């Protein structure tokens, strides 16, 4: 079998050659491979540390939390992207707490789809994604006793304490598992994984990505509530790197 001469060379039509030449510029954004490696937990130490600093995660051997510092904001009203954050709490890795303060503001889009949102923006996301978790997951998951998951906003008195006795979950690892489950067409498993992740204090650091994956899982199940969740996502993260994807998937304007 002899191969024909490529059209880029052999076509009589100038437009064909021009269009094929136009693909020559196809290349990924700088650093995309490094981000992919880090997301898989296979990055070099330097890459992993850099990403860990961005998301407020400090890892040892790329996968372990060293320690946690609990920061509580009680009764603090913050208007963030049109949403009010009544109360939230989150935990940050002690060694990366300085890096976190330098992270982007909610109105600043993530530098890449894999860059984590700021803690404040994540807090907003958690306040709306939690109820969906209960309403949506087809697998019965006992809700945490402290927080009614149907609540749209966390009230100060309802702020869940950290479950220090529970094993902590590396949020990047959890997201990797969710993606794997979605790739394996296991949307219920992905939702269960997301529910588990969202009970973790560290979930705030990946709330934006987790919300997008939840929308994917709902879509995969043909759930109508995916649209509502998508609309909320776009309200909370209008400039998210995922915004176009969410609109495209849901057919939103």
């Amino acid at each position: 079998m002899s191969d024909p001469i490529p059209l880029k060379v052999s076509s009589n039509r100038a437009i064909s050659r021009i269009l094929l030449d136009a693909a020559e510029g196809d290349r990924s954004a700088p650093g995309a491979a490094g981000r992919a490696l880090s997301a898989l937990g296979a990055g070099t130490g330097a890459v992993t540390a850099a990403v860990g600093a961005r998301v407020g995660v400090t890892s040892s051997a790329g996968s372990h939390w060293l320690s946690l510092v609990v920061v509580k904001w009680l009764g603090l009203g913050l208007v963030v992207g049109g949403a009010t954050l009544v109360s939230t709490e989150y935990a940050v890795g002690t060694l990366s707490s300085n890096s976190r303060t330098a992270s982007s503001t909610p109105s600043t889009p993530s530098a890449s789809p894999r860059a984590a949102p700021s803690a404040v923006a994540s807090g907003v996301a958690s306040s709306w994604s939690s109820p969906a978790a209960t309403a949506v997951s087809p697998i019965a998951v006992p809700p945490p006793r402290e927080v009614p998951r149907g609540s749209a906003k966390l009230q100060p008195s309802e702020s869940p304490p950290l479950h220090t006795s529970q094993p902590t979950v590396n949020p990047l690892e959890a997201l990797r598992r969710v993606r794997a489950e979605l790739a394996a067409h296991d949307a219920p498993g992905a939702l269960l994984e997301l529910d588990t992740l969202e009970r973790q204090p560290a979930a705030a650091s990946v709330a934006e990505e987790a919300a997008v994956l939840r929308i994917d899982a709902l879509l995969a199940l043909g759930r109508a509530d995916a649209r509502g969740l998508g609309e909320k996502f776009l309200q909370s993260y209008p400039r998210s790197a995922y915004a176009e994807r969410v609109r495209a998937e849901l057919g939103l304007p």
Partner: protein
Amino acid sequence: MSAPETQRGSRADRLRGAISEHYELVWRVLRRLGVSESLVEDAAQQVLIVFANRIDDIRIGAERAFMVATATRVAADFRRKRTRSREELDPELLGALSSPAPLADEQIDRARARRLLDLVLDEMPTELRTIFVLFELEGMTMAAIAEVLNLRAGTVASRLRRARAIFEMAASKFSNFGQQQ
């Protein structure tokens, strides 16, 4: 170092090596198979996750073929989702299609031509587009394509012929873009 640790270490090395060597190829294949630029990184991540999960089953030296084959499937999934959820053309593509200003050969804006290429490739059924992209844009031989996609050589040849015919016909709709006004 214990045996399992050594195995984990070599697996991680292999993963790193494969990604650094083939990530760009995966990205290009996904993009050229119709995944929009804003979603390509996500799609590439899916490919890498599949690769990482199957790494022990992949023969040494077959990483590239595995990634390309996986990328074609992931791209097809993304395209299906887009088709399901999107009723109207991407405004950007629509702009490229309906722009009243033909461009001279030497003035062809590369970005606009790239969008037109997407439109033309969108005219092809997925199975033809895959062959076309791998042969015409990635420079793979028909034999290599047959191996990667697990197809017979004759099937690859006939699909490439059909894909080329569709491409030339669809591209000709835009031939005025390559002429002086």
